[in-house]
């Protein structure tokens, strides 16, 4: 089944000083990611982490939570994103299972590090980094973890009032977006002369009409978690 969504998004004109840092990232992709993030948080079902030890609801992430979510997606016949990485005779490395992707907050990275030795494998401990993505932090069992500062967090909403992190675990067929016919993405740049009477500002913008789609709702789960401890982030 395919569900569709119509969205016309536009990053408004910004001053030159403001848009300069944005040139370092692909603003179209970033805008798409934020839209899809909010959409998935709104529309996909949730599993509360229960494998951690902090006694909250949800708990911090434990390795059993990774197993549970992967087993759920496997049971639902979700497709994994990445094939495994075969073990090599390299000190400190270990094989990586075929995996789903999990999108997590950078604020959880200390918790992932805390799972080292009980299931977490840092991306730097992969036998080969050739398939690792730039934002990839590591792997636990059948899940490879991507971290971003833009990952969704519900501040102070757990049973004990702690921050709740939405860790979105996706199978390959779970989500997509569809560009609407006749309204392809436009990258717009107008130099200062054309952007205003006084030529003070330039314009950089993207404009696109897009449909977010959960193509298979059984192949996606938001794994909700808290952190093991507050680290003042």
């Amino acid at each position: 089944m395919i569900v569709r969504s119509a969205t016309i998004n536009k990053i408004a004109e910004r001053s030159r000083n403001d848009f300069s840092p944005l040139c370092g990232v692909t603003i179209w992709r970033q805008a798409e990611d934020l839209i899809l993030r909010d959409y998935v948080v709104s529309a996909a079902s949730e599993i509360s982490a229960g494998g951690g030890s902090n006694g909250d609801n949800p708990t911090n992430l434990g390795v059993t939570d990774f197993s549970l979510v992967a087993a759920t997606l496997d049971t639902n016949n979700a497709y994994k994103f990445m094939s495994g990485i075969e073990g090599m005779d390299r000190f400190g490395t270990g094989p990586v299972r075929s995996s789903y992707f999990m999108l997590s907050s950078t604020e959880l990275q200390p918790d992932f590090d805390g799972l080292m030795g009980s299931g977490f494998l840092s991306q730097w401990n992969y036998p080969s980094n050739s398939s690792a993505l730039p934002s990839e932090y590591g792997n636990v069992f059948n899940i490879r973890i991507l971290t971003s500062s833009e990952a969704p967090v519900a501040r102070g909403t757990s049973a004990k009032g702690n921050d709740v992190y939405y860790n979105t675990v996706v199978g390959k067929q779970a989500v997509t977006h569809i560009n609407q016919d006749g309204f392809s993405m436009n990258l717009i740049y107008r130099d200062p002369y054309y952007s205003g009477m006084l030529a003070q500002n330039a314009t950089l913008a993207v404009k696109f009409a897009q449909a977010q789609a959960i193509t298979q709702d059984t192949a996606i789960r938001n794994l909700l978690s808290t952190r093991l401890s507050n680290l003042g982030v």
Partner: protein
Amino acid sequence: MTEYSRMAKGSFTAVGTSAIVNLPFQPDFVEIWNYSIIKTAAANKVAHAWWDNKLQDGSNNPTMVEIYNNASAVVFDTIQTNGISAFQAGQLLQYGPTKQIIGATAANPVVFNVTAHGYQVGDTVVFEGLYQTQFTAGMAQMSNIQFTISVVGDADHFTVKWDGSGSNYTALSASPSGATVKKVLYPFLYVPQVSVISAITLGATTTIVTTDYHNFEVGQQVAFRIPNVAAVPALSPPAWGTTQLNSLPNLLTPGAPNYGYVVSVTDNWTFVVNINSSAYTAFNVNIPIVNVPGLSFPQVLSVGDVNTGGNIISAGSPLYPSPQFPTSTNRVPTINGPAIRGAFVNNTSQGFVIGSGAAAADVSAAVTMIANTNIVYWHAYLHDLSLP
């Protein structure tokens, strides 16, 4: 010298003492005229209000107002909090101020006592720390769930749809430490969204009650995620009980989804699906509090194609009019429209809010900027240059 300034103006007839005005920008200055009061002077009413986002009075960003005071003389005043403000509902998970819970009834439905909560029917809230005795007794089973308020009893009490009458719930009293509530400012950025199930009535068709507005329409295809809680000691019926509604596995055709369709919508919280659940296990929210850590909630979510529920613009048209989302009294159009058929509604928006805060100096009555049936004209600006 204007280059990127934005200006907008408009008018509306007020419904209540607050209003949201959607704009293609977030203004830094807003001015409103209450024509009804200007035309017909009335004591303790606001004729003119204006707000600048840079104005700071202590920790407040007040709105300046020109009012008829208790003696019907025109005076200046301020609204220190909950006046005019800009908003951007483009990022999920924004919350209002955290408020202390004084108490809550262990009943069906649950009534919360929060001093001067300021909420209205239709507001969505989330609770935290609902422990009467830390981590051993209370109503923590309701934490981290979005509830849309169903009844506002008075200024200090409101009701949400949850059965807290079970033996595993302990009423809250005497302002338990850490028991708080806050408003979810923009709960429906995309609709219909995943919702937590509050109650299920089994039968030839199945009636579902959600904790927040479900935003479903007749014909909507829905899926269920109902965790099986391994309660200790075991419960009868088990929690959450009705796991037969789960989409997978379907025992007849393993791997095949087992979805239902909405056949009627009773109200914003309640709908009926075409699943015969007569032989299913009863739904049960009486979860032991020891099971709260790691507790996943029963959920219903939308799949399939009938999501906006709007009326087609004309026969044969591929388009719906601007999608709408429900409020306690009516349905409000989103700014995104028209939509394609079967679309999830992207309800992100921005603009300004006219709050229901009262004047600070004239306290002889609650002097709000607008009131029901007032004709209100507004101007909104986003300036290029703002000094300092």
